[in-house]
């Protein structure tokens, strides 16, 4: 895993953004921006070109699945970690097949985030 990753956190929940950002900082990474919905996420992605996007699945307006597809349309190499409380096999299968690098189940833990980011470095070019 690279020593510092620039991360875009996308979650409609204020408290979840707070927690994931804190955990990422504890792991030595940088949260470059936070978005509360898919549209904002796309805009911030283009603006900041982060190394990783931590993307919530259930969001109003443009949900995580649609946002994932759009992100991969604008950048096919986008590294996206799906974060969700929904842990159904169907959701996991859908997101990984759609191009997400990892599926992380909420609630967030330091260990979970570490594993997700470790997994990215193994699969990235």
């Amino acid at each position, binding site marked *: 895993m690279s020593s510092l990753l620039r991360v875009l956190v996308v979650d409609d*929940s*204020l*408290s*979840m953004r*707070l*927690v994931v950002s*804190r955990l990422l900082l504890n792991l030595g990474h940088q949260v470059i921006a936070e978005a509360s919905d898919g549209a904002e996420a796309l805009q911030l992605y283009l603006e900041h070109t982060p190394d990783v996007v931590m993307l919530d699945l*259930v969001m109003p307006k443009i949900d995580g699945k649609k946002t994932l597809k759009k992100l991969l349309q604008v950048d096919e190499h986008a590294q996206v970690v799906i974060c969700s*409380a*929904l*842990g*159904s*096999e169907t*959701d*996991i*299968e859908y997101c*990984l*097949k759609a191009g997400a*690098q*990892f*599926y*992380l*189940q*909420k*609630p967030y*833990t330091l*260990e*979970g985030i570490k*594993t*997700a980011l*470790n*997994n990215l470095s193994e*699969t990235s070019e």
Partner: protein
Amino acid sequence: MSNNFFGQFLLEKGVISKSQLLTAIDLQNASHFSLGQIAIRKGYLTRQEAEVINLEQQRTDQRFGALAVSMELLKGRQVSELFITQQKARKFFGEVLIEENVLSQASLTGYLQEHEDLKRQSSLRLNSNIYSHQNGALIADIINTTARMFSRVIKMQLHVSEVLYEDVEIGAQELAIHQSAELPKPIKTGFIMHRKLITSLANKFLDMDVSDNPEVCEDAVKELLNIVLGNSQVGHDKKHKALSKLAPPQVSKPGVDLKAAYKSVLNIQVSVPDHSFVLFLYTD
């Protein structure tokens, strides 16, 4: 990280790769046939009859076999036979990994045990958030029953959008509502809680003191409830009494059996005795 799905657990543990996970899911799916598909293949049902049962199933929370029998389209012994055929054909996720030489039997057994332990710990952690309240057991049971009742009809769509501070009693104005856009008939879910309960749940859940930030507290409890509903983990303690054995929660129509009220969807309000927790579900 509750990882109900064994494959997700192995992925997060780094035991299998993303591509191994997806291959195993595909192979597992290929071994699964619905009761309707098997019944058609065996000539017990026509395609049209299976579709009718499926449609009825979407409207109710009954299982395919039970519906087919009640609609006099299948006999009980035929349903049993279909189940046996289905179970024999169905491969477990771990079984596929062994067949694909990803895991040995011994390592699979070890990981399955580890997965069970993790699920138990995760459940205990979520439960400890809820059970810390004096009516925790009842709150947990209400949430669990709700998740179970809707598990087939609106699985994962019982989404809590808002939690508000409110010192109110049942029947007060409706707050904290959410309308699910994905449902054919909109269902609104609401939770009303006392301020102290929200703050204490939020602090425990986030593992940080956010007492001075009501917005974060409300949001954290909303997330906690969604995780609990999504995972249906609360109340899985085997020693925990069944809902029917607890003091009956209050419902919108006094005297209405809670389970019946859930089934007759919707216009339900359930609360713990001191009204510190109220759940309501309703349609327009």
